[in-house]
């Protein structure tokens, strides 16, 4: 027998819970700000010999800034432009053969180190790649070169088209089943469905996704240099790295990082102003059945779009698979060094992903709770926007700055190497934060709009709500955020090479190490293993179709 609290009893409970929620958010945000701020401050105050003098914002910096903006804007635009039709087609075809695998593999590029992705892309698009081989059998004399802006764009779309597609698809799948029923009853055509149902569901997501992609592209480093064809293609991140390495000039490093953050922050703020918020809608939890697009040509077109999009993402992955299979996998699989690296990588990935999901839920809940009153007080609005901006801009803080800063801070406490795992976990958690935020914020917003009043009026306690209401419907987005964070963390090389801890060898680190000592085949094999681990994680993050149906039945 369910016991329902009296309304007058539940009111203070709700208020306390709001306070706790906001406090958790403030605590998380403050922790992140402190982590970044302390590192930057330590680096800035470092009493370091041989700092070069000279103007920080010289012609070189403006040139790389221009190029950073150009390639990032183009990459973002193209990724989203192509992601929209792909996401629409995938949403319309829940029974497309192999769909769940396509959706799962869309999370894979993020988990690959840039070098691996670059080699995979070159296997397809390079001078000796599949495309040029095709063209030359068709009679083309000289191979088409992708090196230059085109190569950078291909690489960035390869990384970010899948990301945008997954986020948009999640948005489309949140559309209540009632909408499709009504749309069909009203006899809406393709365009009307898009204008009245699909577009309102995704337009609110686009600024967030665009911001995320823009930041990933703006801070891109290895891909830009390797596929850019020459130093004309350099990003601010290259200048930052350069300033910290050969020049070792901390003030310049900090100034360039601030430039990167300020510019992007400005662009994101403008983007956010220009777009209306997403509309939330009630649903009775009716299973989503699509009645549109059941004729032949529509099926054909969707199939074509899905195959094209999937092909673009999967072919370079296949190229990684093929070169991986040529290595001595058996030897690698029995190599104790590889076992250790795998265990280390997994431990770090799981820890940082878990932390990341917790922190993101705290941030998202605090922001939405703060904005809940009809006229939120100015402090609440400030907190909400600090959370929204802070959780995304954190991606722009160069990991080398965090690594060097925390090295300085921890040095007085003895051997820094023993702190390396903690620092890596926190850095990886932070780098995954914007992704988790992008997944969980809209999901939680929709969920709260649909259930919060009801569960509050029922006076459900926190645990009961988690078990009965929040848990079941937020499990999927939370798992998706978890698997994205894991994948990101797995592919990360780690910013703590400076810490010099030999005991902490991760898979990407081992991969680079083998590559750096001529063992290219080993590196290809390790890339394959890394990919397989990511695939396993994406299976967790994207439960199969059967499960989806069970969920629907359970409701």
């Amino acid at each position: 027998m369910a016991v329902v609290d009296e309304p007058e009893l539940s009111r203070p409970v709700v208020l306390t819970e709001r306070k706790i929620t906001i406090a958790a958010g403030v605590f998380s945000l403050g922790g992140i700000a402190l982590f970044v701020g302390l590192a930057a401050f330590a680096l800035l105050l470092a009493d370091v010999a041989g700092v070069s003098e000279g103007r920080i914002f010289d012609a070189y910096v403006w040139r790389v800034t221009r190029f950073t903006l150009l390639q990032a804007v183009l990459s973002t635009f193209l990724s989203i432009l192509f992601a929209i039709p792909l996401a629409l087609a995938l949403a319309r075809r829940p029974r497309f053969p192999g769909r769940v695998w396509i959706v799962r593999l869309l999370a894979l590029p993020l988990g690959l180190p840039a070098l691996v992705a670059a080699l995979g892309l070159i296997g397809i698009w390079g001078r000796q790649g599949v495309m040029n081989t095709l063209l030359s059998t068709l009679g083309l004399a000289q191979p088409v070169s992708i090196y230059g802006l085109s190569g950078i764009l291909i690489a960035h779309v390869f990384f970010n088209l899948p990301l945008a597609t997954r986020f948009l698809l999640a948005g489309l799948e949140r559309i209540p089943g009632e909408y499709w029923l009504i749309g069909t009853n009203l006899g809406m055509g393709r365009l009307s469905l898009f204008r009245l149902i699909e577009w309102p569901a995704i337009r609110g997501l686009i600024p967030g996704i665009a911001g995320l992609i823009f930041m990933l592209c703006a801070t891109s480093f290895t891909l830009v240099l390797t596929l850019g064809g020459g130093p004309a293609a350099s990003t601010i991140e290259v200048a930052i790295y350069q300033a910290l390495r050969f020049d070792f000039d901390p003030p310049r490093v900090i100034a360039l990082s601030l430039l990167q953050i300020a510019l992007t922050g400005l662009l994101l703020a403008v983007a956010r102003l220009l777009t209306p918020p997403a509309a939330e809608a009630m649903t009775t939890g009716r299973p989503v059945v699509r009645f549109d697009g059941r004729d032949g040509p529509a099926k054909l077109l969707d199939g074509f779009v899905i195959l094209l999009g999937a092909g673009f993402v999967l072919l370079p992955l296949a190229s990684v698979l093929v070169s991986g299979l040529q290595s001595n996998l058996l030897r690698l699989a029995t190599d104790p060094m590889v076992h250790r690296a795998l265990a280390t990588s997994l431990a770090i990935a799981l820890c940082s992903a878990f932390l990341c999901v917790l922190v993101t839920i705290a941030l998202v809940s605090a922001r939405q709770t703060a904005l809940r009153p009809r006229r939120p007080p100015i402090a609440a609005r400030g907190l909400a926007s600090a959370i929204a901006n802070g959780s995304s801009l954190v991606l722009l803080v160069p990991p080398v700055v965090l690594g060097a800063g925390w090295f300085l801070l921890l040095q007085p406490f003895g051997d820094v190497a023993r702190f390396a795992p903690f620092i890596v976990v926190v850095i990886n958690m932070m780098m995954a934060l914007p992704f988790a935020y992008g997944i969980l914020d809209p999901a939680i917003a929709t969920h709260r709009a649909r259930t919060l009043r009801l569960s509050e009026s029922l006076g459900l306690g926190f645990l009961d709500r988690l078990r009965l209401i929040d848990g079941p419907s937020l499990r999927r987005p939370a798992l998706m955020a978890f698997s994205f964070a894991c994948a990101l963390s797995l592919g990360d090389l780690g910013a703590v090479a400076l810490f010099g801890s030999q005991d902490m060898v991760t898979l990407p680190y081992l991969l680079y190490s083998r590559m750096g000592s001529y063992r290219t085949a080993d590196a290809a094999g390790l890339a394959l293993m890394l990919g397989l681990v990511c695939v396993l994680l994406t299976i967790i993050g994207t439960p199969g179709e059967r499960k989806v149906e069970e969920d629907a039945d359970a409701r």
Partner: protein
Amino acid sequence: MRKILFSLMAAAAALSSPAVFAADKTLTVYTYESFTSEWGPGTKVAEAFEKTCACKVEYVSVADGVELLTRLKLEGASSKADVVLGLDTNLITEAKATGYFAPHGLDVSAVKVPGGFSDDVFVPYDYAHFAVIYDTETVKNPPKSLKELVEGDPNEKIVIEDPRTSTPGLGLLLWVKSVYGDQSAAAWAKLKDRVLTVTPGWSEAYGLFTKGEAPMVFSYTTSPAYHMVAENTERYQAAAFSEGHYIQIEVAGMTKSSHDPELAKSFLAFVTGPEFQSIIPTTNWMMPVAAGKEPLPDAFGKLVSPEKTFLMSPDEVAANRKAWVDEWLSSMSLN
């Protein structure tokens, strides 16, 4: 979360300092990652040295030579390094400017490095000349000089490294400067058409090369030795350039803060000795600077051995590096 993190850190810090230096003497060597990797010379070197010193060698390894210097600068005088192994000649001036290194006071007359490098603070322990490595299956007429490389068929591509981020990249920059002098900018503008792409580091460039994406790559004269010894193939060869080759010399030095300067000094003597020199070639894939215990593997006899060696003084490099990189940037960015 943060609280837990900090208390863990505090606990770890409390556990750290004492008890480590209890029994034996310890020599702490800072070096780069590939030295201590499972294939690198690190383990063998430590074992061999430990037999002579009744001490324990502890490595702290960072990504590469440049990062080694960064770490020292960040640590300052409190560094626990006794010996720093893995800087190259281009970093020496900056390394000395930190004031953390002490003169070695060793007689290094047995050390033979092409170009005749010697220094009172840093001891060379291996070297290699930079070289263009080509794939014999696709390049039938490899360039015979830097001039031929610059002026050759722009459709026959080469992958090079970026001097802003990598040591070989800086090496090529200095090589071109040594040969072309004032005409370097024009040479780069011409070579640009032949450059497929400029990678941030050696690994990316060499990866593209072995994948067959470009028939030439900028690397070391010793690279073919790896393919001959470990892979049994003579497919990849170094092109000998008639003007001469630029050299990279790797050096080691002892710190002023070393808690056992005598031990540090004996390690520096050890790295030029026969045992260390025998370990280096097939683990670090560099040339030894002195006679080893055993003769060099045959493959090393087949390598290009340049008649003329280019090496700019560390001071000259330190003084001009920024201007030369800027010149490189503008020539390579022309359309």
